[in-house]
């Protein structure tokens, strides 16, 4: 029983920390800079697609020729699992390289699309990102060489050498990266640069009038947050032990973080943390407890979206600015 509870706690924590990266990025973009982004899954998907290829780098290192994305995916996973059961260095190197590559690619793409989208704002910007992200999801699902198409790409166990601790280590990695991301974003939010971002959000013209190049700053924010969104995509794949393009959809990767972000409080990183925690826990409670509602004359599966929608609406009614709204900045004099 204790093991089951520990399992549940670890599972909840992994989900929480994974979503924390998304909500932190959202807080930076929307909460602090006013850049609406309904397509967080764009960069997460890019990160995943890169991982689909770099994950099998070890095959090249070992000189094995296999169509790891296509028909030989199973075999590739089997071969790598066998190799990784006695070799920890290669998979760690692979993961490290993946993270670097994902960061560089997402930064580059973030810069390009950030610059392209400068003329848009508000809902237009949000919808632009949404269309872009849905497009990349669809391309990933239809174009097999990218990420296995609809069949996806199974991944090897990178920590096979650690045997029973493999899953635990993966979860710890997710948690660590998330904590680092959160700490970094917190540092930014509390810095003078963070205050500048809020100024841009409140009144861009005022920021421009004091000589700040707001366009450059916006592009920097999108570039910076895209890096972490890409890494989050890699972590999602690590957790599911596979890359499935349709798992980077607007509901799971964009709308849910938005709910968490709004619930917690826009512009407040701690609020995002709290919102994420509440949402993940409520989802888990609904998931585990809905079997007690079998007395209802309806399929309990549909209770979940209704309960979640109602929870959001009630929270917005009671706490419209979120549970931990942004505190006004206090002047020292």
């Amino acid at each position: 029983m204790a093991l089951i509870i520990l399992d549940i706690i670890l599972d909840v924590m992994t989900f929480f920390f994974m979503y924390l990266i998304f909500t932190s990025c959202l807080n930076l973009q929307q909460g602090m800079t006013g850049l609406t982004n309904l397509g967080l899954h764009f960069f997460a998907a890019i990160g995943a697609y890169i991982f689909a290829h770099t994950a099998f780098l070890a095959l090249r290192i070992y000189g094995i020729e296999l169509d790891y994305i296509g028909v030989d995916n199973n075999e590739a996973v089997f071969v790598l699992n066998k190799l990784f059961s006695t070799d920890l260095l290669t998979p760690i190197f692979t993961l490290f390289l993946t993270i670097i590559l994902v960061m560089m690619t997402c930064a580059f793409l973030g810069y390009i699309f950030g610059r392209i989208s400068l003329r848009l704002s508000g809902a237009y910007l949000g919808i632009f990102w949404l269309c872009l992200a849905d497009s990349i999801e669809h391309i990933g699902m239809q174009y097999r060489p990218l990420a296995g198409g609809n069949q996806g790409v199974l991944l090897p166990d990178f920590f096979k050498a650690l045997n029973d601790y493999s899953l635990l280590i993966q979860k710890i990695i997710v948690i660590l990266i998330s904590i680092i991301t959160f700490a970094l974003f917190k540092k930014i939010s509390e810095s003078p640069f963070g205050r500048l971002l809020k100024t841009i959000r409140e009144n861009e013209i005022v920021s421009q009038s004091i000589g700040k190049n707001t366009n450059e700053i916006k592009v920097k924010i999108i570039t910076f947050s895209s890096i972490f969104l890409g890494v989050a995509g890699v972590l999602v794949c690590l957790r599911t032990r596979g890359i499935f393009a349709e798992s980077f959809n607007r509901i799971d990767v964009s709308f849910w973080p938005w709910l968490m972000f709004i619930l917690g409080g826009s512009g407040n990183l701690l609020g995002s943390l709290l919102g994420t925690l509440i949402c993940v826990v409520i989802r888990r409670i609904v998931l585990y407890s809905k079997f007690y509602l079998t007395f209802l004359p309806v399929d309990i599966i549909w209770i979940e979206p209704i309960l979640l929608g109602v929870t959001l609406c009630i929270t917005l009614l009671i706490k419209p600015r979120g549970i931990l709204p942004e505190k006004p900045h206090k002047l020292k004099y």
Partner: protein
Amino acid sequence: MSHLVSKKILAIFIIVLLVVGIGAYFVGQITVVKPSPVKPALSGEIPIGVLHSSASEEGYFQSAINIAFEDVNKWFNESGIPIKFVPLIENAEESTTKACEKLESLIARGCQVIIGPQWSTTSLAVKPIADERKVVLISPASGSPALSIAGDYFTRTIPPIDAWQLVDVAIAMGRGINVLVVVYSKDTFGETSIAALEKIAKEKGVVIYESFAYDPTAKDFTVECSKLVEKYKEAVSKFGWEKVGVEIIGAGGHCVPWLTAVEKFPELWKTASFVGPHVAGATDVIKYTGSAAAKSGFTSIGPYARSPLSLSLKTRHKERYGTECYTYGYAAYDAVWIAALSILAAQEYKGEKLIKVIPSISRVYMGASGYCAMNEAGDRIAMDFEIKMVKFINDTPSWVTIGYFDSSTQTITWVST
């Protein structure tokens, strides 16, 4: 006097006999070892997970699964086994992320065996978690060859996709078709099916003139159908009408929109062979698109078993739900039974034990879909099929059995109609 003495002796003899007899009885009661009642290792409620890939799959499968659980619990009850199986139902809502979440939720609720998922994509996504957590998956519909791995925790009560495509090719050949125009859904099922079809067709000497993919999320297949007509006409002009057949590969839920599109193109009403998704006998095909199905001679396949269980499921499903049991529903029914019997055989509700027991149970289980014997990869080895076609019977579109496919001989026995 002697008469009196003999009566006395007889009386004494009877009394002694009685005393000895009664004494022996009592002594026997004390000395005979009564077998103490065996305390069952398992008792009470045992949760079995059911993980549907989507809401539409739940709509197709859940009815057969409900009947399966009722039958299983009734049998256990009548057998005096104090176990009741409780289904815990989850829906992945077409998302692999949600599928992983729901699987973990089921495991947390104590499930060591899970019926599902249906889609191969979902199965591929949740398999690593199931393997890691040593929880058995018994899928009634995932046919991807990528899931054929020995030593894992994934099993299925249907044979891999190759077996189904073999039947489709056999149907074409049986009708004298040696050229096919194929349209397939751009998903795991469609892509693995077309790969299997191409391989089998090549072996059997059937030419795939043209094949192209369609988006399974589309709500209208008019454009796709117009392309299909175009390619079909090209093939007919080259090879002749009697040699060209049409095949649509997709999930059961695509049948109705495809037939709706087919109704708009009279060229497809008189093909030499029109084979579609595996939904033989499906009620919604008749209800929503019966006319188009009958006009085009829509042919489909489904599992066939000459077993009382099969007939019983079919009858009860129709009585209770008013619809025919879905093609793969028979496999879902058998999945529940195999799970329950394996738990009984293992005498322990642990995935590690169950995965070892399931193959042997499957070898002796004759279910609603036939013999469910599995190979070392946990795949069902063989399945016989019933071939059905929609025809106008007294001006009413109806499913009619036109043949049976025997997996052992790989031949079709056509039924004259």
